[in-house]
């Protein structure tokens, strides 16, 4: 990870190592408060993806590939999408209609409120973060492959 030949300079790497956690934290904050303030699953997910991309830019593609399990990220993406669909199907099972809000609603303006909307927000956030990161990752690596599907 500290291979100085790849990626940007040492300054950028050190700063990234600190700031990337702040970016992740901000993304998680946006996702969790999606039902109370502006933001939500998509916005927070994009910021999470940007955190990953920050690492990729600072340390270089090869160094990131060494410690990041891409197959695992793909699986997380598929699982979060599947879980979202299952939440909808659970609505049919528990409430009689697709995507019904079957959890207790709570009081307005509290963090734990709005039924299953926070859960759906988290799933969207994970899905968006993973897919956006993987899209940019694949696009950045397209020129290295020789034709065929990516």
């Amino acid at each position, binding site marked *: 990870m500290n291979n100085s030949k790849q990626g940007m300079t040492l300054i950028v790497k050190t700063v990234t190592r600190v700031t990337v956690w702040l970016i992740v934290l901000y993304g998680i904050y946006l996702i969790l408060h999606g039902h109370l303030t502006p933001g939500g699953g998509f916005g927070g997910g994009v910021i999470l993806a940007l955190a990953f991309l920050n690492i990729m830019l600072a340390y270089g593609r090869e160094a990131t590939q060494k410690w990041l399990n891409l197959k695992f990220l793909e699986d997380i993406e598929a*699982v979060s*999408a*599947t879980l979202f*669909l299952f939440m*909808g199907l659970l609505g049919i099972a528990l*409430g009689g*209609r697709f995507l019904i809000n079957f959890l207790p609603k709570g009081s307005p303006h509290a963090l734990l409120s709005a039924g299953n909307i926070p859960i759906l927000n988290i799933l969207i956030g994970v899905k968006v973060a993973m897919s956006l990161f993987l899209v940019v990752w694949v696009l950045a690596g397209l020129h290295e492959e020789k*034709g065929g*599907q990516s």
Partner: protein
Amino acid sequence: MILPYYIAIPLLSAFLISLIAGKKDEWAVLLSTTAGASMLILSIYSLIAQNGETFVYKMGFWSLPIGIVLVQDGLTCLMLVLVSLISFTSLIYSVQYIRHMDRNWKYYALFMLLITGMNGVIITGDLFNLFVFMEIALFSAFALVAYGGHAEEYEAAFKYAVMGALSSALVLIGIAILYSATSTLTLAKIAEKVPTLDPGLIFWTGGLFLAGLGLKAAIMPFHAWLPDAHSSAPAPISSMLSGVLIKVLGIYTIIRLYFNVFNAPDFYMQVFLVLGAVSIILGGLLSIVQWDMKRLLAYSSISQVGYILVGLGIGTRLGILGAVFHLFSHAIFKSLLFYNAGAVEMALGTRDMRKMGSLARVLPITSATSLVGTLAISGIPPFNGFISKLIIIIALIKAGAPVYAILAVIGSILTLGAMMKMQRYGFRGETEIKKISEKIGWRMNTAMILLAVLCLLTGLMLLPGIRESIVDPVVKVLVDHSQYMQLVLGR
């Protein structure tokens, strides 16, 4: 209520395929064919059980101005059966065809997303939801056109994607204007407010929608992307695109918007007649000069979509019956012909009809079913194509538009010429072909035989008894423009 399952089943199988499929495609094939078969069963069940009624499914029990509704009426049922039928045969056909290219599960995941998008467009009752599902279907279509990984396929997919993005922008502007005028996005609510709107607004919004949806349906001035995309895609995808995608995204949406929402404005009925006639003649002329088999079929799709549009443009009961029936039968025989072209391409490694010859010996089933498809598309009596074209032409004469009737007959002759050229050079040429590079397996043969049999059987849909329960509800939806709005709003 089974309506949300039409979206949930293919979506779930797409996600599961990407989750559990390893390097091989066995799981993907199993999952996707299971999903396809279950949707076929569900849709046929709902077609038989519908009895001409309209079901409204409120998502999450939200009442209408707030929530999104799914609507099932006669037209929806027929379109769902069509999509499920073609996609199921296409999936069976794909197994060998795609293994011949590579063994990749991504194809099946994209295929399932394509079905999700189309089913969503068909059953949704919300304008913006329709747009989103349309985009889902288009994305997977772009990716699937480029699936082969050759230079021409990327070129065709790029062209298609640029056109698709342009058409989506136009449709979105139309949606924005409709929303600002009516403050609602539910189709039925918009239909309720349309009589109070300024006719000029309907005129301009209709123009935007016509350009956007016409690009998706490849009506004649907007057709440039279709021959490239449909001939470059893998054969099962060509049949999906030509058979159902342009009809669901283009024609079905046009039907819903112009008949059920805009209340069939006279000006646009005239426009449909003119554009349809232009598409029939020019599509036929352009298809007759092609030497690439799939490109010939693709141009002929433009011409056949013209027939549907002319049938809609007449606006009488008979014309709409002909249009709906032609929509159904064209999907079946055009898919069959694309399967045949794909089988020939796989066996000989070329699509150029000048390099083909007599194939009756080496590809007996392909050759025989292609004859059925040819007869059906050219309108030879016992097959479904004859019945639908006859209904459209009779409707034109009855409605007092003999010029269009003559144009439709000329278009039919042009189609016959193009198809005879395909038969003469492609399947029954002089040079006897003895060796083929790849055998056509039982799966591909099953798909072709199934559709060839359906070419004959769907003609029976117009028999009294079957007609009352299947075709008449569809025609009723389109003839009584305001009935859709009243039924959905529950009045």
